[in-house]
């Protein structure tokens, strides 16, 4: 081989190395930029949380949970707010979970794929992203004025139920879709009906994913404020809803569904908007509780998903 050829080959290799170095620089530059973006987001969030915790945590005490709101910040508590949040969560769960799961299963397994179901699907995904106050306005017209349900726990529960329904439908469908088709075929090949296939296989195998979706949707609902203010939540409630059990027959009472309510984020908002700094401390304490509750709920969701993944192998 002539020296000229050798030299031109060497030049090519050098070119290639320069090119690689250049591209590696770009790689590195993006890596650094990405890390900075991540740190910025994380640190801002962390600063906010620490600030909230430092202000709020010292205020937490047993009385804070067992006292009604009060004109005196040091005596004010969140009893009516957390009871209201709890009652509304139960109402929301009772209406949104069965409806959402049933709708998800129907869309995924029963409905034929045509333009109509396509349209419905698109709208459900769209609904999941609509500003929550729109749901509040709709609920005000429908539940409060049309159905005369009043500014009650029932109205609030149904409103939040509507709000999280799309989330439950979408996550249910996604969970069902992870069950391999071979399992469906195996069940059908043994003579199972569609319902037997859904009940004996799809739902049990996807229950981890469905539960995760349910919990995440409830943890979203617990922090919602705007739609509840729209349907008429009170900001100052110094009494509890009717108890769900009674001494005489039929022992269960649903009177509480018709009671007025407040919830934790509204209580928090109310305190923040007052001039006295002592009330701001109360708001921070409520914020800490909300934060911990959301964290716990999401933690449970992750744990459930992990457990179910471990148990299921295809």
């Amino acid at each position, binding site marked *: 081989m002539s020296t000229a050829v050798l030299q031109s080959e060497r030049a090519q290799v050098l070119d290639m190395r320069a090119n690689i170095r250049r591209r590696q620089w770009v790689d590195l530059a993006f890596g650094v930029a990405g890390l900075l973006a991540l740190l910025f987001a994380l640190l801002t969030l962390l600063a906010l949380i620490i600030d909230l915790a430092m202000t709020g945590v010292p205020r937490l005490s047993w009385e804070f949970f067992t006292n009604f709101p009060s004109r005196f910040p040091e005596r004010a508590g969140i009893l009516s707010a957390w009871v209201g949040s709890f009652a509304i969560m139960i109402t929301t769960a009772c209406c949104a979970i069965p409806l959402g799961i049933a709708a998800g299963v129907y869309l995924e397994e029963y409905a*034929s*794929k045509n333009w109509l179901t396509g349209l419905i699907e698109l709208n459900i995904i769209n609904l999941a992203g609509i500003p929550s106050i729109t749901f509040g306005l709709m609920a005000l017209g429908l539940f409060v004025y049309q159905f005369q349900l009043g500014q009650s726990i029932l109205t609030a529960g149904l409103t939040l139920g509507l709000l999280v329904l799309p989330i439950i439908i979408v996550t249910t469908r996604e969970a069902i879709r992870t069950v*391999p088709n*071979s*399992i*469906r*075929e*195996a*069940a*059908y*090949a*043994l*003579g*199972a*009906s569609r319902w*037997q296939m859904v009940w*004996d*296989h799809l739902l049990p*195998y996807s229950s981890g994913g469905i539960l995760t979706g349910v919990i995440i949707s409830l943890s979203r609902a617990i922090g919602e404020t705007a739609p509840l203010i729209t349907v008429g939540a009170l900001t100052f409630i110094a009494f509890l809803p009717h108890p769900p059990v009674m001494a005489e027959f039929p022992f269960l009472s649903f009177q509480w569904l018709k009671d007025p309510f407040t919830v934790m984020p509204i209580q928090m908002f109310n305190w923040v908007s007052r001039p006295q700094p002592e009330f701001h401390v109360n708001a921070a304490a409520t914020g800490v509780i909300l934060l911990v509750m959301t964290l716990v709920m999401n933690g449970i969701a992750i744990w459930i998903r992990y457990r179910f993944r471990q*148990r*299921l*192998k*295809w």
Partner: protein
Amino acid sequence: MTTNTNLNLRAEVKDLSFSYGPKKVLNRVSMPIYENRITALIGPSGCGKTTLLRCFNRMHDLYAATNYDGEILLHPEKRNVLARDVDPMEVRMRIGMVFQKPNPFPKSIFENVAYGLRVRGVRKRSFIEDRVEKSLQQAGLWSEVKDRLPSPATALSGGQQQRLCIARALATEPEILLLDEPTSALDPISTTHIEELITELKKDWTIVIVTHNLHQASRTADYTAFMYLGDLIEFDTSDKLFTTPRDPRTENYITGRFG
């Protein structure tokens, strides 16, 4: 086509055409299925052998835009399983199927085998237990799993899982057993196991098996059908089809000139 008058017909495919939407996959296929015999469907990929097998238990009904034309008559009453007024659930309750890839339910070994009975509403515990044991014995799995029936089926090896799927199909005593390339996902030792098992099973069952393994067809099947591009090219006893094929396409295929 050779018809054997000494054997009882278990089923009969008559002028069966099948299409996915506009795409025709089977073209006027006719063939007999003899009682207590193994019938193999062979042919290159995409020839329609699996499609034909899945017509027998109306698996195609699960998907949109599929269309049957022609008949599959189930003997002795000569019921056309493809008829519109026949519920696919009835067909699947009478004709069992084992799939290409083992697909046990993520439940216990016991529940897998018992599921076909549960679907039928059988409640009696002792009956289910007896049937589970019998089916697992027939599938040659009993001695390996009898001490761990409550443990998950997915923990079994691939070969064991496939035998479990066979036991699951046998538990409801189907009139015909369909096997769709039952060994294609298994190692050679498990394959031998399953092949021996299939030969054993024909004493009590009528079997239709799809395979791309020509040795498997010639070793285990009594009858073999060679399919090509949706047509049934040749149907004969495995002996004749593999030694003296009549059609040049069959000969080319079994001698490995295409496939």
